[in-house]
């Protein structure tokens, strides 16, 4: 793989009319192929994203962030993407950190690159997340899925084409983060964690709530348990 690799950035968005344009503008400086997946927003997100000239796919009804990411993955894969980058639309991620995220994949040694808030000291994380939510999430990931990584719910990630093929996201909601780690693990994909910055805003998710469908910590645990049973 080299720097000319076909890279697609997938931005799932739900009711992000105020932030979507800036996010696209920031990412555009780094990646040319941007795919915004509007997850059935009831505001002007779709229109605002289209105005920027990037590819915009629209879910006719809200299905959740995991579902939107898989739509983006499928589109990118079908269009010959070698790498897919997942990037949140709410302005919590830093576009300038994409090259650092991509580096492990360029080396061809890794299939999945994950941003981690626990490597380095770049995110000013609320203490409730740092000391309560994430230790629980790590434990759930380890007990239910056998996955041991520093950041259990990182949404900033890059997947190689091989990883896109092996990891088909079936969790429509926020449980997709754990699902991706689990599928990467069972498919023996090589994972590298890199430091990332997260700018926390009021739109993040908590134990009980989150924006959009199937969000919140408790819902994630419920979804993972149900998936385990269905399997």
């Amino acid at each position, binding site marked *: 793989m080299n720097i000319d690799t076909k890279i697609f950035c997938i931005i799932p968005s739900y009711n992000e009319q105020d932030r979507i344009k800036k996010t696209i503008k920031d990412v555009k400086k780094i990646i040319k192929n941007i795919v915004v997946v509007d997850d059935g927003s009831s505001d002007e997100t779709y229109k605002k994203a289209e105005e920027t000239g990037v590819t915009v796919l629209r879910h*006719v*009804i809200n299905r959740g962030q995991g*579902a939107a990411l898989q739509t983006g993955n*499928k589109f990118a894969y079908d269009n010959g993407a070698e790498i897919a980058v997942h990037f949140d639309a709410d302005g919590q991620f830093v576009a300038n950190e994409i090259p650092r995220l991509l580096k492990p994949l360029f080396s061809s040694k890794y299939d999945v690159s994950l941003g981690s808030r626990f490597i380095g000291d770049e995110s000013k994380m609320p203490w409730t997340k740092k000391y309560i939510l994430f230790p629980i999430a790590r434990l759930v990931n380890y007990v239910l899925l056998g996955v041991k990584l520093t950041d259990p719910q990182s949404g900033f990630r890059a997947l190689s084409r091989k990883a896109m093929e092996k990891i088909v996201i079936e969790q429509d909601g926020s449980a997709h983060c754990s699902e991706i780690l689990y599928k990467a693990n069972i498919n023996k994909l090589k994972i590298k964690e890199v430091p990332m910055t997260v700018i926390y805003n009021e739109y993040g998710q908590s134990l009980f709530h989150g924006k959009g469908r199937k969000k919140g910590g408790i819902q994630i645990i419920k979804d993972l348990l149900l998936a385990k049973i269905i399997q």
Partner: protein
Amino acid sequence: MFQQIIALMVIGFFLARIFIQRKNKQVSRTEFLFWLIFWFLSAMVIVFIKKIDILVADLGFSAAGIDVLLYLSVAALFYLIFRLRIKLEKIDREITKIVREIAIKK
């Protein structure tokens, strides 16, 4: 005795309903058979409730036969809800697939 007659009348009502529904082709053959057997067994339980009391006591339960049946039906209901939840989850996934196809084809 009076309670048993009432219970059998209720069962008779549901049996009549399922026969009518089958006649109007509102239920499938399998579903019809399931409910037919279900209500038939329920009627048998009502008719032989005294014998069930003895059976339950012999098995070591302190409660009356009807109580044990009630516990069993609660457990069965929980199981059915669980099955329903799984079915809903699968339907949910199918909906997502359709939504995805529409998004990509447009």
